[in-house]
Every structure is written in C-alpha cells, then in structure tokens.
C-alpha cells in the first residue's frame, strides 16, 4: 500500500466510522435485563468471541513472541504458576512451593490431578522436558531469555553445555526442583509466561512440525484447540481434563484475527465480537460519547520514550543538551491533547510496578514554565543559542500517532529552544535495523511493553551489553547497579539497587521518557469475570457470559 493510499484509507475510514451515530448500536438499546433479575444469571450459550489483533504466529509456546499468540496460548497451556483475572500470581499446575533461604532453589508440589487435554497424567518429567526444550538452541526460541535465570540456561543456549545440565530436576512424579543462577524475586512471574508452560512430549515426537495443528495439539490449559483457520480465527473449547474444569464457565472461545482496527470496531458494533483487542485511537471521542459503558481503558505495563544516540555527536558526551531537549517537551500536550485516551505523562523510565518506588526526573514536580526555563539554560550551557542552533533529526516508525507526536515535539523544541529538527519515518523493519546500527540515528522513538511485572524487564534493557540498548548508553556504574540487583537476595535491597540504577539513568538522560501506555478496548456489558490488569493478560477460565 503506497503512503498516500494508506493516508487516504485512514481518512476515509475515520470519516465513515465517525459519521455513524449510535444507530442501532449498543448505547441506545435497553440493557436493563443483562444478567437477568439477579444481575448474575448466566446466558445459556457460553461462547465468547474475542478480537485478537493480528494473526497469531504460532501455537508453540517456545516459538511465540507476539501478543496474539500469547493471548491464545495462556488459555491452552498452564505453567506451574498462573494468574488471576486481576493479574495476581496464583498457583497453577503447582499447588504450592517452597523457596530456599538463599532464594536460589524452588521446590514445587504439583497437583496430582493435573492432566493433559488427552487425559495423560501431567508429571514433573513433563516440565523437565519442556524447560530443556525452551533453552535448547535447537528449538530456535526467540524468547529463550525469559528462562535465563535458570541455572546454566545461558550456557546451554550458547551451546556451551548440554541441555541435561539445566537446573531443573524431577524429585518424584509430582515434585519438581528448579535451581537458579541468582536469586530472582520475579521468578514466579516468569513461570506464568508461555516460555514456562509444558509441552506434551509424545505429541511433539509423533507429529514433528505439525504438532500444533487442531487434532494434534495436546495442552494442559482450561481450553483445548478445536479449529485454526489462519487469518480468520482460532476456536478453543472447554478441556474436561483440566484440574479446575468445574470452575470453567465458557464452553467455547473464538479468537478472531482482527488486523484492521476500524473493521474490528465495526464488528463489535454489529455485535459480532464480545470484546476487541484495541480501539482505533482516532475514534476515542466518538466512543466516549456513544459507547461509554463498553469502552474500557486500563493502565498498561508499557513505556513510550525517545532515545538519543549517545555514540555520536551532537549527543555524545552532552548530557546537558539531552536534558534540555527532554525538559522542553510538554508531555501533557502529548497525552491530553494529541493522544487523549488516558495515557499518563511520564518523567521516569519504569512504569508503575508493585513494590517498586517509581523514579522520576528531579524536574518532574516543577511547572512546565520552570522546566522550559531550565531547558533554555542547559541548552545555552551546552553551547547552543540563537547564533548556533542545534540541527537534528527525529526518526520514528511509520504510524499515525508516532507522526503526530514527532511533529509536536519538533514544534516544542523549535518554540522553546529554537532547535531545527527534521522528522523522518521508516517502515518498522528498516527502522529497527537503522536504530540498531547507531550510525544514522540521532533521536528516535521507542516503546517497550514489559515481559513480566518487575522493573528488571525495563532496567536490563539499558545495560551496555543489552541487545535493545540502541542509544549506545554505556555507564559502568549503571551496569554495576543492575548486576548487583541480580545477586541481591533481599527483595527490599534489590529494589533499592534498581531504583538507584534508574536514578542514574535519568541523570544521564540517554533517553527521554514521554508517557505510560494504556490499553483501551471495547467490552460488551454482558461479559462477566473480565478484569483489567497491567499486563493485559486474560485467561478466559474466569470469563463468562451474562444473560442478555
């Protein structure tokens, strides 16, 4: 699709979607009878139809890397630890566990009644096999770093040790021991990740590459695979062998591929979907007015920021200039006027995480005028001014919201400091390639959605050796603090180290934080048991359909 064509298409789509009015749609209809007289009465047909965004890439938990795949997989497989509807960690296949004094040895007592979806008993050996498969370099697992905390995992993935050396051992049929390289307080959270879920060895060996097909796939989650039509839908049905099957209410869940956000919204409005993956952000005002009850906006574990390439001039060895540019940006204009979905202006890198004291730039509590005054001062101190303006370039991946933000920042820099910034967009794959080479970039857009609910998923990214540190930031003190946090056994001390690391990062300012993400989606009023959570994980064993 050419650029102009794309813009036209979007324009047209927003025009069309915007002019509909509520019509026969949601808002105007009487909805008093939802849930029957008691309000909690269940519908006869327990079928949930979910918009799932782009087509999922795989149903193999060790190959998955996209949210579409994760969304389905968390209903097909269950790890030792699982999540409640609100995202809290709860026992999964393990009914309880003990953690050694030094925080490096976990012993899990598995539920003896746990079974695979074909009725086979689920044993500790299954987990040993699956963890080994996850770290085995032959598995070609893109997300293998999730299992890094396991003893020897890194060496195995690097091909330096055999997989049998992995720190996972079956003590008996239903007891599993896991040894870690370092005390890792967020380890239980990793156990709910797709990478830590078990795969059924006999199925893999019998069907090879074809093992994830309907009819072949054997899982251990609340649902089992029934249909998969690529680009159309995945249908899962109740798994009668699931240990908690008595509490599952839904009989079927359809995950529809809904790549086009406007089309997804129309399908929701036509009552073909019970919930959407997201909303087209341009529709936010229309939806607020007409679908207030259905629109659900929740905080999301994601941070949006601009990185500075600190390996080259003008940003190399120039923290004052970086700080000046950061302070000159009025974040509230971006979150309240440009995006306006509920995003939170941000002066720190790590989004709010339980147990972690959020760190902010010291100027966070100032007024914008004060920040701008300071920005001008720093800009002058960095050697720039009316007779020598900074000329730079903002690079972002092609997308409408990113463009609007880049244009706004370009203007703010121009107005407050006089900076001449040009903006340039690149298609995604080209963009990450350019960014990673650190040659042509100066200021670039980046965002990161946390893999697990712990500050480490953010702070590790800025280590000098990290694969995602496209700023080229390299401060040994920062690296030391992050490394020290990994071996700190005491949770409080560990958090302190991480907080100190973030303070260091914000003082050096290789990146400027802009906002914390939110997750907006549409949910029909008859969907029960659905709760928003920061990771946006939804296990539909908790979801049900109210009478309507």
């Amino acid at each position, binding site marked *: 699709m050419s650029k102009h064509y794309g813009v036209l298409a979007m324009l047209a789509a927003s025009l069309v979607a915007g002019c*509909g009015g509520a019509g026969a749609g949601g808002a105007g209809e009487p909805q008093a009878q939802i849930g029957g007289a008691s309000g909690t009465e269940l519908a006869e047909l327990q079928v949930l139809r979910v918009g799932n965004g782009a087509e999922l890439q*795989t149903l193999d938990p060790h190959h998955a890397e996209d949210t579409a795949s994760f969304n389905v997989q968390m209903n097909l497989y269950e790890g030792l630890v699982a999540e409640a509807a609100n995202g809290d960690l709860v026992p999964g296949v393990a009914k309880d566990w003990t953690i050694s004094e030094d925080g490096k040895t976990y012993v899990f007592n598995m539920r003896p009644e746990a079974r695979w979806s074909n009725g086979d008993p689920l044993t500790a050996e299954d987990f040993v096999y699956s963890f080994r498969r996850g770290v085995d370099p032959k598995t070609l697992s893109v997300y293998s770093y999730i299992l890094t905390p396991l003893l020897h995992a890194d060496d195995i993935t690097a091909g330096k040790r055999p997989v049998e050396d992995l720190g996972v051992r079956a003590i008996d049929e239903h007891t599993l021991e896991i040894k870690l390289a370092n005390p890792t307080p967020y380890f239980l959270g990793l156990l709910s990740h797709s990478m830590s879920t078990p795969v059924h060895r006999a199925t893999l060996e019998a069907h090879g590459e074809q093992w994830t097909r309907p009819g072949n796939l054997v899982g251990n989650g609340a649902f089992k695979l029934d249909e998969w039509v690529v680009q*159309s*839908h995945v249908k899962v049905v109740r798994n009668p062998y699931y240990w908690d099957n008595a509490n599952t209410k839904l009989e079927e869940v359809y995950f529809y591929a809904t790549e086009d956000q406007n089309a997804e919204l129309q399908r929701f409005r036509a009552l073909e979907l019970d919930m959407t993956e997201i909303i087209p952000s341009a529709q936010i005002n229309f939806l607020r007015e007409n679908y207030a009850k259905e629109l659900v906006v929740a905080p999301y574990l994601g941070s949006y920021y601009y990185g500075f390439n600190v390996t080259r001039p003008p940003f190399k060895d120039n923290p004052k200039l970086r700080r000046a540019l950061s302070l000159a940006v009025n974040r509230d204009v971006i979150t309240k006027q440009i995006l306006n979905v509920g995003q939170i202006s941000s002066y720190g890198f790590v989004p709010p995480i339980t147990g972690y004291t959020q760190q902010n730039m010291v100027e966070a509590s100032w007024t914008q005028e004060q920040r701008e005054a300071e920005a001008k001062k720093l800009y002058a101190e960095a050697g720039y001014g009316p007779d020598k303006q900074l000329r730079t370039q903002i690079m972002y991946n092609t997308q409408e919201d990113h463009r609007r933000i880049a244009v706004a920042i370009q203007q703010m820099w121009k107005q407050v400091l006089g900076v001449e910034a040009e903006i340039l967009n690149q298609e995604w794959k080209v963009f990450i390639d350019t960014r990673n080479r650190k040659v042509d970039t100066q200021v670039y857009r980046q965002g990161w959605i946390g893999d697990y609910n712990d500050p480490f998923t953010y702070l590790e990214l800025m280590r000098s050796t990290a694969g*995602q540190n496209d700023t080229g930031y390299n401060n040994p003190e920062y690296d030391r603090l992050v490394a020290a946090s990994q071996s700190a056994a005491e949770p409080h001390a560990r958090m302190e180290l991480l907080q100190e690391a973030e303070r260091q990062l914000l003082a050096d300012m290789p990146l400027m934080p802009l906002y914390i993400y939110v997750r907006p989606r549409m949910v029909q009023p008859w969907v029960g048991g659905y709760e928003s959570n920061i990771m946006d994980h939804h296990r539909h064993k908790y979801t049900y359909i109210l009478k309507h």
Partner: protein
Amino acid sequence: MLSYTIRRLLGAIPTLLILIGVAFFLIRAAPGGPFDRERSLLPEIEANLNAAYHLDEPLYQQFGRYLWGLLHFDFGPSFQYRDYTVTELIVQGFPVSLTLGSIAIVVALLVGISAGSIAALKQNSRWDHGVMALSMTGISIPNFVMAPLLVLVFAVNLRWLPAGGLGDGSLRNLVLPVTALALPQIAYLARLTRGSMIEVLRSNFVRTARAQGLPTWQVIVRHALKPALLPVVSYLGPATAHVITGSVVIEQIFSRPGLGRFFVTGALNRDYTLVMGVVVFYGVLIIVFNFLVDLAYAWLDPKVRYR
C-alpha cells in the same frame, strides 16, 4: 492454432523465471531481515535460525535451492507463521479469495455488460445517462470508502448482514464483500462495453446486417456483441487474476482470510518465502489468464486466428 498455443506457453517460462529472480533478490535487498527484532536475538539463536532457514548460504545457492523447491511445488516454510509452510498457507487462503473473486467477477460481468449494452443501444437517452453517471460514481468511489460504508449501513445500523469474517460460511457473509469488490468492476465494464458497442453498431457489417432486414435482437446478439466484447475480454484477463488472488483492502475490511493480506504482512515482516510464494502464485495466474485471453481473442476475432 496449436503451434500458436505452444509458442505462447514456452514464452511464459522466461517471463516467470525473470519474475522469480527479480522478486527473490529485491526482497532480500530491502533493509532489515526476517529475524530482526526490537530486542536483538542472542547470537547463537540467530545463527541457528539462519542456518535452519538456509539464510547463511550464499545468495546464488539460496536461489538455486528455491528454484529446486519450486520444481517440487515446495514454497518453503513461512518465517513469520512458524507452524505452517507457505504452500499450506496458499492452499488455505486461495479458495477463500477464489470464491469471493469469482462470484464478484461473474456478477460484474452480468451486470456490467448488460448495463453497458443498454446504454449503448439507447445512446443519449435517460437510460444511457443514468448508467454512465452511476458508473462514473462507481469508478471514482474507491473500495476503501465503499466497503466501510456498506458495513456501516447494512451491518452496524441495519444489522441485516454480518460485518465481516467467514461466519458459518453461508452466502450471507459474501453479500457485502462481493458488492464492494464488484462495484468498481461493474462500473468499468459498463463503460467499456458501451464504448465499444457504440463503435461496433456504427460499423459497416452491422449496417449491412440491418439493411438485410435482420431483427434488431439478432443483429445485436449474433453480430454486434461478440466484436464489442473484445476490449472487455482483454481487460478481463488481468482483472480476474487480480480479483481472485484477493483484494488486500476488501479482505482487510471484511476480515476474510484470503491470499491478499499475505502480500502485505509477508513484505512487512520480511517473510521472504511467503512473499515469494504469493508472488510466484500470482505471477503464474496472471500468465495463465493472459494466455486464456489470447485464446478467447482468437475465438472472438477471426483476424487473430488467421494471422
């Protein structure tokens, strides 16, 4: 006629080879690769991935391997959809596109040619102006405006028809996408038919047929329609190939799991094998349809046959 057919078929082979070659090297020339991630992969994993998909071999060797695979109808594994091979994806997607596309083409032909003929026969009448005005609108309103409008009116507001998806596979689910896909074709075909029909109606052999006292319908159906359809037929070849391999826009808006969307997602994800697969498949279809058009020409126009 036979030698003509064979010559045409042999001529298709170099065309196809050039197409494969250009596509193969162009997609690899684009910056960024299939395994580039925001978070770079561990070097060992990346090396293993490259080895598994033979991306570590020299290009000419990869090309040879690809051609060898093609000879066995093996398009290779998809890089993006790791559970499927490209052949499987095409086999799943093509029938969906084919059903939608062929219905749309048949509808477009029936409606377009009839409307165009009527307009030509009643030239400058109210009928003619009506058809031409409608078809002008049909041509100038693009798919991506028409399709969401249809959804808004018939699915969201009236709730008569589904907004998208395969549904239960019934015809109901096809009405809106077929309409959206056929409308511009109808419009174009109507204009095309009208134009050439008017020209044919003024030609000497039609005047002769009329002078001999043949009834009007016989003049039109037996003598005028066939030559008038020549431009329509030449338009129809590529148009059919295009429509049945899936319209990206229509499939996107109506969430239909056809082939069209693989073009876009494949290219964006640098899914080399998937892009190659759809390009080759599409290329073969275009060549086949152009060939059929040439044969149809020979049937419709004796001048071609005896040349």
